[in-house]
């Protein structure tokens, strides 16, 4: 892992070269093969300590990282900074240094402020490796990696080149770290990415992004190989981004009628948690095209791969486990 981006930390998908991405995806696949083969727990990270430092609630992401670390035999410390002594504006430096003093080799950071992970990595406050588990409305790189993994496992013929795939990301692009990470990661793999949203939920300046943009879901629906539905938060309504849930669902929700318009092999994705009936109907979420639960299980493999590659500089030698 000598390339930029995963050299010491995983902060952003913009830093990742195609080769690095493929290495992570291949490692995850290999780990999946081993664990499927009956070896549920690998001794690879025995004696290493992974800290889940969560300044923002996210039970799913924390559990996924925790499961990944434990399957690699790492010690796991969970620190939920929300609701503890840490209040607004203080604590990132002190908390991280405290956890490092407790022996953290790697910090998985979830934070409400965009750039918090990069700030921690660049500041010199700690020596531990940093994995960005979601920073504000900036990035969520492991989510994009698990999404790419999921897409690749459904389109195995695409292997390391997604240029035959049209991928749509639908919804609140403006506030979505998942969208940002996916745009740059999917682009690195060659995919054609279309952002689909009302103009109010598209960031100013997206013209410079390597994507197509559409205000009309129906006009692109039939061309998509994968459709990612983003969670829409109801408070966006009070912030004047759209008039009502009903109108949003009508124009941008993946409802039962739109389900029929999808291509034969198209898959439905969602980073969770879902608002059933809002951005996605129950029938869409539960349809055979839905890979939403695959995304969850693939998330553990991807996070295992990231932890392994970042901490595996001097891995505990385990014969035959990973080459």
């Amino acid at each position, binding site marked *: 892992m000598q390339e930029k981006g995963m050299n010491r930390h995983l902060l952003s998908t913009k830093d990742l070269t195609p080769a690095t991405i493929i290495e992570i995806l291949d490692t995850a696949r290999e780990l999946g093969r081993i664990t499927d083969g009956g070896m549920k727990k690998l001794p690879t990270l025995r004696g290493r300590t992974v800290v889940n430092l969560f300044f923002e609630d996210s039970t799913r992401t924390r559990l996924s990282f925790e499961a990944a670390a434990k399957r690699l035999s790492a010690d796991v410390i969970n620190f939920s900074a929300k609701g503890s002594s840490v209040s607004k504006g203080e604590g990132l430096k002190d908390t991280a240094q405290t956890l490092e003093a407790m022996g953290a080799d790697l910090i998985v950071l979830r*934070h409400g402020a965009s*750039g918090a992970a990069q700030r921690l990595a*660049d500041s010199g406050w700690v020596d531990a490796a940093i994995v960005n588990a979601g920073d504000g409305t900036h990035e969520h790189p492991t989510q994009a990696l698990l999404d790419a993994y999921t897409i690749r496992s459904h389109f195995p013929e695409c292997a390391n080149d997604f240029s035959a795939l049209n991928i749509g990301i639908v919804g609140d692009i403006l506030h979505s770290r998942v969208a*940002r990470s996916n745009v740059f990661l999917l682009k690195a793999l060659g995919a054609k990415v279309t952002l689909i949203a009302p103009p109010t939920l598209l960031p100013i300046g997206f013209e410079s992004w390597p994507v197509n943009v559409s205000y009309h879901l129906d006009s692109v629906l039939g061309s998509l190989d994968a459709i990612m539905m983003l969670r829409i938060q109801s408070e966006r309504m009070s912030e004047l981004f759209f008039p009502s849930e009903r109108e949003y669902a009508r124009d941008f929700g993946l409802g039962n009628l739109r389900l029929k318009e999808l291509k034969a092999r198209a898959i439905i994705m969602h980073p969770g948690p879902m608002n059933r009936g809002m951005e996605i109907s129950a029938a869409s979420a539960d349809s055979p095209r839905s890979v939403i639960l695959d995304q969850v299980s693939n998330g553990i493999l991807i996070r295992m791969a990231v932890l392994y590659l970042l901490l595996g500089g001097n891995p505990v030698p385990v014969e035959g486990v990973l080459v």
Partner: protein
Amino acid sequence: MNQSRSFLIKSATLADGTGVDLSIINGKVDQISDRLESNESFDEVLDASEFLLLPGFVDLHTHLREPGRESTETVLTGSQAAARGGFTAITAMANTNPVADTAGVVEQVARLGREAGICDVFSIGAVSVGLRGETLAEMSAMAHSAAQVRIFSDDGNCVSDPLLMRRALEYVKSFDGIIAQHAQEPALTQGAQMNEGSVSSLLGLKGWPAIAEESIIARDILMANYLGSRLHICHLSTAGGVELVRWAKANGMKVTAEVTPHHLLLTDELAKSFDPIYKVNPPLRQMSDVLALRGGLADGTIDIVATDHAPHSMEDKECEWNAASFGMLGLETAFGVVVESMINTSHMDWNRLVEVMSKKPAQIAGYTNHGEIAVGQSANLVLVDPKARWRVNRFASASRSINTPFHGMELTGQVRHTFFNGIHVVSNGELTGHSYEESL
């Protein structure tokens, strides 16, 4: 007794290229001539053959943090930073704690400035009580106090309520006051973190659109013109704002505008580091804005450079971007940054630099002892080495804070000597410890 010290400055070059000798006696400029005889009656003779002799710089936008946040800056340390930056007059913004919205607070700041005695410290009074934008502060009392306030501003906050702005513009006419507007429509900038554009979209930081600044500038230009009042636009930061002011001036409207050194040199690309040392209000904008600001300053659309020197503690910058305070230091680097961005890029010459850093700010604020070099005038002067290259070191600052975005950057043009009322307050770039107060 310092004031009685007499100086002969030999072989200096004025902004227009003229070579002169200049003598200072009893705090005043005594003689200016192409050759003055060096003799024993002078306490000190300074060889200025490598230097430009300019009127001391005048800043109309300085945050001194006293009263309230003395751990980050005091009137004394701010004055010291000013003198090292070549300023002989600075103007303390009103957003202290308590707010400078009464005669008592502005007089306190003025008194602290006199006691420091390193430069003139003038006060800006608040427009509204507590900067809250609800009711007018007692501006007349501040104007008629010992501090003789002429400029009023809620800086940090915009006077966004159009009725309050109208009343303020009208009210200050009776004492020839100026409203200095921090142009920022609050409804368009709630929670905003940086310039809105492709960089903010990439970083997921909440954007601060140029139109939030420009819509207020447009409104206030029209309002001030309608009322016949004096309006000053603080820290212009967008190309659109420059165009609006240019249009207003072309149509004979009374408005003045300032630009900060950092907006002349830095862009929002720096936010990609997520280092809040680059977090400032108004935010760093795009290169097209920077170029428009340089053009505006060069052609007279923008009247002056003002530092918006804003000291902040380490604690307020050593954190994630969203949690950090807005603001950066400016006094000690202003000259070098202006040389770097305006002289070295051939946007303007030394005469224009004197206009924008000394003459025009002194005129706008009515600081009659500043802004020109003339016989009989108070000796408020600066000697600069126009060619010196130097590296900014945040730890070598006179300020109590270290939040400069220019740390490690190499700049051209260095302040070597500063004279305040004839007192040699900075010699060879260092504070001498002399002050005007002790000389009295």
